[in-house]
């Protein structure tokens, strides 16, 4: 049930990290090794003690994701033509239409996946990146949890892109009804991908390093 820790683990915090011990712990397989080789001896993944470029990549992907999220909301996501009449739907427009039809549950799913999660993710990643190296803002556990939630939930924003793909594939009935994807689908998919990359670039070890900053 429990991991047996190092007996003489820590002076101040009680936790000895691989970094402080002058070693490197692999982020993908947990193997502990001496610094030097660029790749892990066990899994062959890249080894970096503390990657100084990590935060830069987080910000770069995050900004890219925010930029493409704007056209994703301005341009139409779906082009529906029924009996010669064409309507264009943006993301929010689609949610409102579902809501008007009385499909509240589905409207809520789409709204959460395409509006609440992306915007919440922008805020959460920016907050994590800003609060790195401060042990005061929220305790490490809170930020750790926030990071896990962001990593887990980010991919679910893709729902709307898939909905568009299925509708466009399915509803192709010449004059009666056709649905075609709008350009917003592309920018929305890019926005989701960029913020996923942003979250993956974030090194959760930097959350915990703050606790040792005064000690090195």
């Amino acid at each position, binding site marked *: *049930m429990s*991991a*047996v*820790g*190092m007996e*003489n*683990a820590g002076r101040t915090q009680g*936790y*000895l*990290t*691989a970094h402080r*011990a*002058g*070693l490197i*712990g*692999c982020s*993908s397989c*947990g*193997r*502990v*090794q*001496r610094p030097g080789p660029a790749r892990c*001896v*066990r*899994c*062959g993944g890249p080894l970096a003690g503390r990657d100084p470029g990590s935060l830069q990549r987080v910000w770069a992907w995050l900004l890219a994701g925010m930029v493409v999220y704007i056209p994703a909301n301005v341009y139409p996501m779906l082009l529906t033509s029924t009996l010669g009449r064409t309507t264009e739907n943006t993301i929010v427009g689609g949610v409102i239409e*579902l809501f008007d*039809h009385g499909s509240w549950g*589905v409207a809520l*799913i789409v709204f959460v996946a395409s509006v609440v999660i992306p915007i919440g993710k922008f805020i959460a990643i920016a907050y994590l990146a800003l609060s790195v190296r401060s042990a005061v803002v929220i305790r490490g*556990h809170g930020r*750790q949890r926030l990071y896990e939630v962001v990593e887990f939930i980010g*991919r679910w924003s*893709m*729902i*709307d*892109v*898939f*909905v568009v*793909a*299925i*509708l*466009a*594939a*399915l*509803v192709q*009935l*010449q004059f*009666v*009804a056709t649905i075609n*994807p709008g*350009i917003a*689908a*592309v920018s929305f*998919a890019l926005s989701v991908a960029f913020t*996923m990359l942003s979250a993956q670039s974030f090194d*959760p*070890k930097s959350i*915990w*390093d703050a606790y040792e900053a005064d000690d090195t």
Partner: protein
Amino acid sequence: MAEALPAADGTDGGGELAGLVACPTCDVLHRLSEVPPGATARCRRCGTVLLAPRDSALTRIVMLAGTALVLMVAAVFFPFLELQVAGLSRRSSLFDAVMAFSSGLMLPLSFAVAALIILLPLFRFAALIYALGPMAIGWRPAPRAETAFRLAELTKPWAMAEIFIVGVAVALVKVAGLAKVTLGPAFWALVALVIVTVLKDNFMCRLSVWKTLEERRAT
């Protein structure tokens, strides 16, 4: 603190250091005693699961990945959904959903959707079978099994079959007022695939797999 560690002589130290685990999330060092199957070892500081070995996990993972592979093939080739309205009907497969963006500017999105819902899941199942299959029947790991397993773990967030299923459900509600939709065998194959994937991930303990790979490679 380096003096607290074994084999601090600057040489290899592989055997000694192999007994340690650094939490992949927060880097705290642990010396893990044998973790019995069914138990879970968590990081002392951040609570990340370090080891959660399960009985005959390797065999189960390989079996489930094989099942998922077959289901995916079925999902791609059988009809997925059928739409009927005013005497017209249209049957579409998973492949049609992928090709929905294939006109003009949006072609790259077609490739992306194909990768997310078909190619990456297929690749992950194949890589897992390749990396773990030989070990599950007691052979030595296949050449470059480490690379295969690492890539399978790396692509995990990008395999989105389960998200696609939720997308299908939403799409069905959207067209429900417009036309009658029939679910094809491919839809159920994909649902089964999602369930199998969840089961497989439950047995998957990344660090135990890495430890086993390293031990079997050495012998």
